[in-house]
């Protein structure tokens, strides 16, 4: 499953790019992220609880960041294991483009869900993934802007 979307953030590209590499900002942005720790250069472990309706799946995830294309391109890939609920593999390419209002992020997320979630919840996975991806960037923008305002005061 591939999801594509754009989001405009009223901050300059370097700020946005740096934030994408910032574990604190990431933790605040990832919906349901209960824990995130840096385990190496560009490597993180996260526990993410995905909830939709009655379904609750707790993914233990390994994430690898690839900032080498920065600040134009930020890449990440990872996998998550939610035990009986299933598991996920995926990655994202986020293109950052400077414009008058700040930075335009174009993201392409590629997620494969397997296991029980895919078996019985397939009709709901796409919508939920889309929503979570969107939520990430909404949170991200919020975290960034509040961080900015905090820094300014």
């Amino acid at each position, binding site marked *: 499953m591939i999801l594509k979307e754009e989001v405009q953030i009223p901050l300059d590209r370097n700020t946005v790019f740096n934030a994408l590499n910032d574990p604190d900002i990431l933790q605040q942005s990832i919906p349901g992220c209960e824990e995130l720790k840096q385990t190496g250069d560009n490597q993180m472990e996260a526990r993410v609880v995905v909830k*939709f*309706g*009655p*379904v*609750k*799946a707790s993914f233990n995830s390994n994430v690898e960041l690839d900032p080498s294309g920065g600040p134009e391109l930020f890449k990440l890939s990872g996998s998550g294991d939610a035990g*009986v*609920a299933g598991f996920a593999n995926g990655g994202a390419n986020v293109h950052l483009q400077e414009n008058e209002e700040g930075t335009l992020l174009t993201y392409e997320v590629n997620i494969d869900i397997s296991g*029980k*979630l895919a078996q*019985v*919840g*397939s*009709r*709901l996975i*796409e*919508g*939920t993934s*889309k*929503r979570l991806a969107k939520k990430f960037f909404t949170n991200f923008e919020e975290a960034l802007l509040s961080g900015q305002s905090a820094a300014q005061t």
Partner: protein
Amino acid sequence: MITGTFEYHQPESLPAAVTLLSQLGDEARVIAGGHSLIPMMKLRLATPEHLIDLQAIDTLKSISIDGGSVRVGAMVTQSDLITHEALFTAAPIVRETALQIADPQVRYMGTIGGNVANGDPGNDMPALMQCLDATFTLVGPDGERTVAAREFYEAAYFTARDDLEILTEVSFSACTGGYAYEKQKRKIGDYATAAAAVLLTKNADGCSHAAIALTNLADTPIYCEDASQQLMTHGVSDSSIRDAVTSAMGQIDPVDDNRGPAEFKKHAAAIILDRAIRNAWARA
């Protein structure tokens, strides 16, 4: 298939249920008919620590029709909706829709409250409620409030209901005109491949009231305001139906699943809606 463990609560009044839910918070789920929740629990995709069963709250089980206003308690079952003659007179589309939900056994258990509250895009009642312009009553720790069905659904399983609120009642005005709930499904018991609820009222000039809503064609039910408006403005004709369908199709966003690819669903949805409008108009 065995669920995880949980504590079971059966409050006997709504305030007791609301209080329980507030106390137990995130780890509690309200259970009505249970036919969506229990299978998910058996698959262990849902593992609530507490279940709050509403079945003992008799105040949630009544259907009252007062003049043109219909109020249906959340614990009224699909089966009750089907057999209630006064409701059939007031809003025959409710029976037509309820009969197309699941199968007899499930309809004896499944409730209108559960069906509209859980936010599953496959459920049939939400689109019907949008078509009827129903209002949902929510009761939570801060008291009671109402939300229009047309404002209630945000995404799959995400609604305007706060986690600590219980949906207690749906209310809507009796409808007088033609009606149709058309549903294409793979077999009895299935969610819709595409379904459409349509209400049309005929008057001397044409169509005085139109309401159209769609099931399982996006991650929420879709109320088709423009399409409804088209029919009211231009009357019901081949061309206005075509325009209304085109307009409604602009709002849907189905996903690929075992029922078929999105492209097929879009096509089927247009056909189903066209039929529903014609059927409703013929009955108007």
